[in-house]
């Protein structure tokens, strides 16, 4: 019944024909209905995310005392479950002091289901190095070590230990759950707190915009400067990307670092259901670029899908409210936009080759 003459647009489908034939039972090469969702009933199990599986390890399980909509609880489960799958469940986790540790292990209850050790605020990387050394010495190198901490425990107080672990290239995957402040102690500024953000120690008073415009502390790039095998940034807003990066990291030995943005409803002043949305806006605005680096060189970055101005990201967070009320602070908004623009240019984030186009998946 097809007409002989085919109009433009058909060609794509002709190509697609080879790759798709459901009745022939071949793999579906693309699907629109929720391409970026956690799972998809149209897709083979092994092509879905770890989180889509009922068999996921739930490294941190129910009953923890994290706030409603906690991005860190989510990010930790995302990352560790992926790591657990990659290591066939053989993971030991070391945890720095902070929200994650406090809300997950108040005696007599722990939410962890894997072997987990908390020592101090600033030494997670070193403790993990010790665990790795012991495992190597005890001939249990099949057991992998993950260290995790918040931005405070990583970019501030734990920074020296982190750098030492990197420099020795110890066989540890360090996961930094960055919620951009000391939330556990009541939202104080950390070196990861963005400029202008209001915290308990960087109040926005009068014309003072909250946190200062410092030079910034780009820990992923500092990690790269150590030349370690793998560095990546990830976000709870893009699970496929996050799991892929954790899996990549688990494929190599040596020091690895993944910096994961985990919004904090309490500290950021967002509604509890906006956790993933605000993380998405951070990336789509260019303020939190997603990239991968190997041995100190950037090897990949995730282009922005639906570009937005930084304002869209800022205005849903009360920690930035002073930029919009009582009067618009154009100067600082422009300065923040400039930061995003720099990222966009540095990581080439506005190219249009994201793998989320059904046509590309089909091809």
């Amino acid at each position: 019944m097809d007409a002989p003459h085919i109009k433009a647009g058909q060609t794509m489908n002709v190509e697609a024909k080879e790759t798709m034939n459901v009745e022939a039972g071949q793999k579906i090469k693309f699907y629109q209905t929720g391409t970026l969702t956690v799972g998809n009933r149209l897709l083979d199990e092994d092509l879905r995310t770890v989180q889509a599986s009922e068999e996921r390890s739930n490294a941190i399980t129910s009953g923890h005392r994290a706030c409603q909509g906690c991005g860190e609880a989510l990010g930790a489960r995302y990352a560790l479950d992926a790591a657990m799958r990659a290591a066939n469940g053989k993971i030991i986790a070391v945890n720095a002091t902070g929200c994650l540790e406090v809300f997950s292990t108040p005696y007599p209850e722990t939410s962890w289901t894997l072997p987990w050790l908390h020592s101090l605020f600033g030494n997670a990387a070193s403790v993990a190095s010790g665990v790795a050394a012991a495992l190597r010495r005890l001939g249990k190198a099949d057991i992998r070590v993950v260290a995790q901490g918040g931005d405070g425990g990583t970019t501030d107080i734990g920074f020296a230990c982190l750098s030492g672990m990197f420099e020795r290239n110890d066989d540890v995957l360090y996961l930094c759950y960055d919620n951009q402040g000391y939330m556990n102690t009541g939202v104080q500024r950390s070196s990861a707190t963005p400029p202008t953000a209001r915290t308990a120690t960087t109040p926005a008073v009068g014309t003072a915009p909250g946190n200062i415009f410092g030079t910034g502390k780009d820990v992923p790039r500092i990690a790269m400067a150590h030349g370690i095998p793998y560095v990546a940034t990830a976000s709870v807003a893009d699970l496929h990307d996050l799991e892929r990066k954790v899996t990549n990291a688990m494929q190599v030995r040596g020091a690895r670092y993944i910096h994961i943005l985990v919004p904090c409803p309490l500290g950021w002043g967002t509604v509890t259901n906006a956790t993933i949305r605000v993380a998405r806006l951070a990336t789509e605005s260019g303020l939190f670029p997603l990239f991968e680096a190997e041995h100190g060189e950037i090897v990949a970055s995730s282009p922005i899908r639906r570009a937005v101005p930084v304002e869209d990201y800022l205005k849903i967070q009360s920690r930035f409210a002073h930029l919009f009320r009582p009067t618009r602070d154009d100067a600082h908004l422009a300065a923040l936009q400039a930061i995003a623009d720099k990222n966009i240019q540095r990581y080439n984030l506005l190219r249009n080759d994201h793998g989320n186009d059904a046509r590309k998946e089909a091809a």
Partner: protein
Amino acid sequence: MKTPIQLTPPKGPVELTLPKARQIEGSRAIAEAVGLCRPQVICAYPITPQTHIVEELSAMVKTGELMDCEFINVESEFAALSVAIGASAAGARAYTATSSQGLLYMAEAVYNASGMQLPIVMTLGNRAIGAPINIWNDHSDAMALRDAGWVLLFAETNQEAIDLHLQAFRLAEELSTPVMVCVDGFILTHAYEEVELPTPEAVDRWLPKFQPRQVLDPAEPITMGALVGPESFSEVRYLAHRKQLRALERIPELSAEFNATFGRNSGGILRTYKTEGAETIVLAMGSINGTIEDAIDELRRNGHAIGAVILTTFRPFPYASVAAALKNASQAIVVEKSLTAGMGGPLAADVTLALANTSTPVYSVIAGLGGRPIPQASLESIFERARDRELPETTFLDLHWDAVNQAITKELSWTPHT
């Protein structure tokens, strides 16, 4: 028992197998003793005067003299003990060494290791704490962390330093608690003297393979280092206290067993020297006891009824043993290399408490701070003044009063607003 002269220089393991005394540096001796205990993870950060110990160990690991051991050069003492904590929690026998500022820099981890009951052994090359910065020996560092929940043992000689390390690993792993072996910086660590090291076989019999009380293992996952609130914290602390008291019982037993095994009486709670019939008993810790013993011999020759107590176990503090050792004395003199400004000698305070139920007065002598020599003559004059009941409650040995008085005068002439 002297070593027959060897025509060829001693070499690594071969030498270790010779159960004979050798004239070597204290740090080397300690390193070899630690090596005999087969640690699986050693973390090192340089700080004078413990540096030679980890240097020797790194060489032993490199040459294969010490096998199956991870030697990790870390970026700070804080990291050093943290690595040891991780290694111990993962089931490895872990060791590190430090001194002075290094101990303070790792202070947080020191408490953490004991709180988590990890059987780590650490050598402390005792050194003063700044400011003013001072690299020489005294006991300020050990005193600063005396209440961190570790067992603290003090060595009088390098031979004892060796023996204490062998006992420390046994004690630590039996009770699952960390142990610190205190060795006077430079005075012992840098001293060349004769020491006897046991054979590896003998040490293997003495120290069985490490069986961790708890271990991180995917096969049997646990959560280590939970948050504990008011409802249970007191219980946790009480149990820590009880464990220390248990150590107090176990230390002498181990010392006796060690004596039976290696034929050397070392370690234990304390030793007495010529205390029988002594009216005056001097109590001290560490290497200064050698000079004290010489002084006592000298004074005894002059008919002075004086003896000494060499305190080896400082934490847990053996109140009963100290009281018993001093019970027949009419006065006790505590010679110590530390000062708690505004309070006096911390060791003297503990001894005073031990003698609380007696009428025996305790005199405190603060000596050897920041490496100041403690000449035998100075000690003898102190002891004689004590015999003549002329000793003030606290004496600062060989203090340069002129300098002090000048400074005080200057101090008084200054007021903030002039």
